[in-house]
């Protein structure tokens, strides 16, 4: 059965790529915003089955990759505070800050624990009343409501030793910043699947309209991505700029309202610095004053100097889509998944990691 379904997939993909070739005339630059799409495109060799004039660019689609060097340094500084247990999702552990990483600090004795969910952090806080448990909040709209829910639960339980450092980012303002950047040349967005489950496809409508850029939300299977590409090419050829959903029944127009409401209750939007893209208006989430007792940045006066990105690392240009990993002088030399220099090589969804892992397929091009 397995082979039959794979065969069907292959036929479906071939049909879709034929359809794309038939409707495609003008050269087009399409950006995939999500790291899981980047992985799937690289793994399935999607670039190879497309005409050369369809250029797929990877965007700022991984929350770990866009976390600024300064924020990473803050996390490391927190891990070094007395009587603090730092909790985090695993992806952050190996990201190098200016001088160290969370993994190195843990080896040196800092109490850094990888958790699966913020519910685990609450349990750790209850078990360790003499310590402060800080969660490193990194993620987009998919993740931020889960952190907000933990803050509300902590308030409910009257838990005084739990706090969050909020480095969350929201996606639509980043798309606006890309469209406003003269160096970036994007004719259509492959919109993220899971972020869109939360924010709903309608969140892209103002961008599609203002910048006359087609936006299609797709899933992660090759057939999903090809279907999304076909819809983008069709719109572009017809000079349309609509928001469409190619991700079957998982994404709706209005999204998950309850999640958005909780997110709004706990966070307010602020300007935030994205690695490589600079400060983007209204793209970060700060814990509201009502919940300041859960804000680690207010509980700890951290003294962290501002830090620039690592020398030679082109993550910034890669996240903006103005360079690909092969154009970074460190790629595959001093920077590999074992010895990463920048976060794009660390994260399992980082663009450099995807290109490194599947580069043979891309080089064949």
């Amino acid at each position, binding site marked *: 059965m397995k082979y039959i379904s794979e065969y069907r997939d292959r036929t479906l993909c071939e049909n879709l790529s034929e359809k794309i070739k038939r409707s495609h005339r003008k050269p087009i630059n399409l950006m995939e915003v999500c790291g899981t799409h980047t992985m799937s495109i690289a793994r399935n060799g999607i670039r190879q089955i497309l005409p050369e004039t369809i250029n797929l660019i990877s965007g700022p689609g991984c929350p770990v990759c866009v976390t600024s060097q300064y924020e990473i340094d803050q996390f490391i500084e927190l891990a070094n505070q007395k009587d603090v247990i730092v909790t985090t999702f695993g992806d952050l552990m190996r990201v190098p800050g200016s001088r160290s990483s969370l993994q190195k600090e843990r080896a040196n004795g800092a109490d850094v624990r990888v958790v699966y969910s913020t*519910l685990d952090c609450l349990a750790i806080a209850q078990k360790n009343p003499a310590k402060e448990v800080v969660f490193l909040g990194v993620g987009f709209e*998919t*993740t931020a409501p*889960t952190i907000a829910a933990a803050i509300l639960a902590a308030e409910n339980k009257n838990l005084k030793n739990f706090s969050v450092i909020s480095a969350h980012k929201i996606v639509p303002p980043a798309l606006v910043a890309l469209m406003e950047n003269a160096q970036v040349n994007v004719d259509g967005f492959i919109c993220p699947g*899971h972020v869109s*489950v939360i924010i709903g496809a309608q969140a892209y409508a103002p961008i599609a309209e203002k910048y006359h850029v087609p936006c299609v939300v797709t899933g992660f*299977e090759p057939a999903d991505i090809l279907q999304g590409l076909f819809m983008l090419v069709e719109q572009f050829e017809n000079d349309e700029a609509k928001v469409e959903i190619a991700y079957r029944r*998982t994404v709706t127009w209005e999204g998950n309202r309850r999640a958005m409401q909780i997110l709004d209750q706990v966070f307010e939007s602020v300007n935030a610095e994205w690695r490589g893209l600079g400060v983007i208006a209204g793209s970060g989430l700060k814990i509201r004053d009502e919940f300041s007792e859960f804000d680690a940045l207010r509980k700890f006066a951290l003294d962290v100097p501002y830090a620039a990105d690592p020398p030679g690392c082109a993550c910034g240009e890669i996240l903006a889509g103005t360079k690909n990993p092969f154009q970074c002088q460190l790629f595959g030399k001093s920077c590999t998944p074992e010895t990463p220099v920048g976060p794009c090589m660390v994260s399992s969804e980082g663009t450099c990691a995807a290109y490194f892992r599947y580069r043979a397929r891309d080089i064949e091009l």
Partner: protein
Amino acid sequence: MCLAVPMKVIEIDGNRAKVEMGGTMRVVGLDIIDPLPKVGDYVIVHAGFVINIIDEAEAQTILHDFAVLFGDDDEVHF
């Protein structure tokens, strides 16, 4: 990072649910989903919380996507 996995609801207790997929059991939060899922429903779980309710066919398709995406050699992190 934002990987979300489909799982089946086995039990509901207040705003927590026990969910299962392929022998992996988890307790997850129902804090950010409305309307609530029912026992037997398929849901999408991200970072320990249900973010969406889907039908069984969709759950199977997504599981297939993960198999394609990560291959059998890779561990899928729940």
